[in-house]
């Protein structure tokens, strides 16, 4: 009666430990893809992401970690809500995205998204809270996406939606330490 653990490749292990998802449990019904609002923009459909993660071989990882799909997850929770195997494909994507990011594998189409995330976090690290003006400025510098929404900034100012002086919290030092420790890679 020895309950031996099923064989697991590194990706499956990481996914199980971080996302709590046992990849072998996915039977490829595609309900995640069917319900995903972003699927139509993805180069790999969510069920394909799950399939390649199941395979986990070098070639699969190459396609997986280089895919735009990982970056297009809107975090809407629909896939997890409806998965008949009670799995969480979005959480799997989170793990893979983090891998891709750490390995610096960023598809061109995802650069803007990454730039936005980074700009967002940068402002939080700087002041403890997100601040729109610095965020937008940083984002546009990083993404070189200078002209889109050019009019919205002024419009938002006109609507008094942008505080000109971003608020910095007292505990920002604390927050910065949190960021540094996380960069050093304390895994939850």
């Amino acid at each position, binding site marked *: 009666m020895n309950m031996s653990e099923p064989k697991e490749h590194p990706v499956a292990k990481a996914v199980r430990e971080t996302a709590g998802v046992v990849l072998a449990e996915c039977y490829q019904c595609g309900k995640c893809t069917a319900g995903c609002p972003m699927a139509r923009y993805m180069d790999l459909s969510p069920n394909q992401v799950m399939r390649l993660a199941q395979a986990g071989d070098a070639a699969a990882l190459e396609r997986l970690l280089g895919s735009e799909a990982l970056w297009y997850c809107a975090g*809407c*929770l629909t896939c*997890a809500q409806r998965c008949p195997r009670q799995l969480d494909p979005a959480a799997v994507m989170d*793990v893979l*995205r983090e891998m891709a990011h750490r390995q610096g594998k960023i598809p061109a189409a995802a650069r803007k998204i990454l730039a936005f995330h980074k700009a967002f976090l940068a402002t939080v690290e700087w002041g403890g809270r997100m601040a729109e003006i610095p965020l937008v400025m940083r984002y546009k510098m990083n993404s070189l996406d200078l002209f889109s929404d050019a009019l919205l900034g002024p419009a938002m100012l006109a609507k008094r939606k942008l505080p000109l002086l971003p608020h910095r919290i007292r505990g920002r030092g604390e927050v910065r330490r949190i960021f540094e420790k996380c960069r050093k890679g304390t895994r*939850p």
Partner: protein
Amino acid sequence: MKTLGYYPGCSLSGGGIELDLSVRALAKTAGVDLREIEDWNCCGASAAHSLDHSLAVALPFRVLALAESQGLAEVLAPCAACFSRLKGTQVRLARNPELNRRMAELVERPYQGGVRILNINEFIAALLKDGLAEKLTRKLGLKAVAYYGCLLSRGEDIVTGDDAEDPQGMEAALRAAGCEVLSWNASNECCGGGFSMSKTGSVLDLSQAILDEARAAGADLVVTGCPMCHSNLDMRQLELVKRRRVPGALPILYLSELLGLAAGLEPGALGLDRHFIESRQLVRGGA
């Protein structure tokens, strides 16, 4: 006077400021004192959990720890995203004491798992129960659709006491405000959330689909509780109108704004003047 912890979250001092204004105004009317968590920080939003698991837990952890140490038993997080992050973190920590231990170490603050996080629907339902209902004198008589989006409808153990596939949490409030609540198909569809800037195209597609469903249902306005949904449906609607992808402008109000109007508060005081899509015509006495 009843006091309630308050976590506005970053966007409520910016793009989502109307939500902050209307929630505060409504709380005042209902005689609830909102006590803001001192020195709160950003919950990390989708950016943190997109890039760094630890950070995605650590940032909300600090907020929870602060609230607990400041003796706040209940905390309102009007922003659906903040609510989902904070309560989602709570759920994870409760399931995994080891994670809680490591986080306390990383954040250098203790957290015992206390503090009840309320979303805007739960908050308003509570207000209505505690007598706000009687104060809703101005019958609006509007045809409204309730838009929950993702984070006010889904999330196991996060959005509790409601049906993820057919949420009803807002309906009662809308009726109390004298609205006719229409059933429609997009109440829990996604608007594209945080991609407003970085993947605007898809946000436009998704928002358009939602606005089309609302119009098809015959709604005068869309009511929401999420600043991301609001900016995608309100600010981004300008572009849809300009490109003639939608036949006309459809007002987008926060649930708290609608309740405020029903309570007879001034549109300006609730922030209606700050929307991109004009909505003040919805109430007589509005400009």
